[in-house]
């Protein structure tokens, strides 16, 4: 059995996940500076370990509602290479678990149409259908 480890999180009514290798660290949301000229999904700039992260609102990015960054569970997932200049804003981190890779399915066409090419695969458990994201695409194709 091949296992993959995923960080699961919720953002703007969506259940999302990223491969743990794509996430450097999960940190609390600090004050965000505005980013004039940036796409709407980039909601601010935040300092993190000596560098500055562009913060992508995962809800807005996937065409949903924006995240409530004041909620107590709100966190930033600082991404790893090649998206290390970015962090993903979410409203709650649901967990970090090993998943049987065979349970990952290709995203249905309608999901790709709705959320774009940054959804890499999906898996379903009793709680929700989780959209597994591609971090590089999430930041590169940011509309």
């Amino acid at each position, binding site marked *: 059995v091949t296992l993959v480890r995923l960080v699961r999180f919720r953002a703007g009514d969506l259940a999302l996940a990223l491969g743990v290798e794509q996430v450097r660290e999960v940190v609390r949301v600090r004050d965000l500076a505005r980013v004039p000229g940036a796409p709407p999904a980039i909601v601010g700039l935040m300092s993190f370990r000596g*560098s*500055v992260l562009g913060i992508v609102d995962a809800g807005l990015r996937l065409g949903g509602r924006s995240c409530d960054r004041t909620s107590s569970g709100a966190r930033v997932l600082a991404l790893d290479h090649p998206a290390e200049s970015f962090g993903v804003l979410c409203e709650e981190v649901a967990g970090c678990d090993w998943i049987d890779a065979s349970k990952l399915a290709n995203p249905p066409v309608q999901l790709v149409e709705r959320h774009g090419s940054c959804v890499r695969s999906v898996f379903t458990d009793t709680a929700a259908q989780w959209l597994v994201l591609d971090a590089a695409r999430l930041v590169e194709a940011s509309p």
Partner: protein
Amino acid sequence: VSSPFAHLLEDFLADAGSTLERILEDAEALVSPSGTVDGDVLLRIRRDIHTLKGNASMMDLDAVVAVAHAMEDLCVRIESGDTGLVGRIVEGCDQIVSMLGRLRDSGGAKPEPTRPISNRPRVDESVRVDFLALERLGNLAAEATMLARSVAGAMRGRDTQLEEDLSSLSTALRVLRDRLAEMRLVPIGRLFRRFEPYVREAARVRDADVRLSTSGSDTLIDKTLIDRLHEPLLHLVRNAIAHGVETPSERVAAGKPAHATIALGARISQGRALVTVSDDGRGLQTAAIRARARLLGVDVEGLGGPDVLRLVFLPGLSTAASVSEIAGRGVGLDAVRAALTSAGGDIDVRSAEGFGTTFELSLPVAAAVVRGILVEVNGETLVAPFDGLETARPFEPGSVKRIDGIDVVPEGAGLLPVIDGGSLLGDADARGTGRRMCVVLQAGQRRRGLLVDRVLEPGEFVLRRLDLRLQVSRSFGGVVVLGNGRVALVVDPHAAMGAVPS
């Protein structure tokens, strides 16, 4: 030179100049950041050194032959992995350049041998470090400095001993941060030096008498800037020789010295590297520029002198076809500007007909320390760079007037054009009617007031570059992390002024 080929001295000097330039360029690319030697590049260097040695021998220049021979030995050792010796190749080129310079100046008298170049690394030989790794270390040191300061602040008044220790820790970390930043800096003279053989050769080909002078060669700038500046500078120097300077007879007739001078200069101002390329040639002809711009459909009515000169950066204006019309200020200045703006820089021009032209290139210095003043606009903290000459002043909110589409405030007996801070942030209704403070921004010769809500405090900040994927407005040249961990955007005066009508 006593050789039977003495009459070929000029040809030899020109050839040697371009060969040395090629070797210097190749030497830069010879060893990859991971320490691997590029075999093709090394082969090219060896061939060039061999040719140089052969020609120098033909000219009976034993001193040059000796240095070239030592350089060949160095190549053999580099090939076997002794990459620390690349610097000695550059040193050898420098020695030959100065020998040939003396040879030219003395009209052919043989140069004395100089001290032999060593084939052993100096004791303080540098170590190659991956530039990105250095950048990351610098950022981490900056973050650690900030955290230590913050902890020291929280402990103030609680425990004297701990407070003192934390203060020492903060100081040590700040020094570490500054030392790391310094390691990225190299003297711009390295770049200037590469133009010496080029200028000699290009002037020879065009039968011109052109001398290159440099100033500010010891100005330390970030290594990445060297790469970004080379192409634009080469373009400007080439244009100056090809079209900017007159022939010796024209110059004498105009009461100028027969030899023309191209001057390269550098300095740091407001956290930006300012590099100038000047010539004392015929200057730009504003009437011809106006005429050419009209043909391209540009509305030139009402444009003042400096703005007319800046038209040369419009695409299609300074093309080869227009060379004679605009005093030949060359091909594709729009391309030069595009190269600079893509690197967060800008270019400006000053010229006086008959007296010459100066191009001023400016680039934000990556990870440089920027001096500025913290200001607040619509609740957002920004850094407005300043060079210490002018800072902030209050103004009457009702005194902003719009004249010909440009907002201005009274300044002494005149008017100061202003930019509203809100418009830089992309906020609607940005007329600045409620603002109370004005900070003067300066970009080259241009000045604009930046209207803000509050002026907080001046300081020195470590400038960070932003990921291009963020698509941040060009009005901002980077960001800084403040002592409280907040990020503040740094206004780029050049780009900010470009964002509003001039």
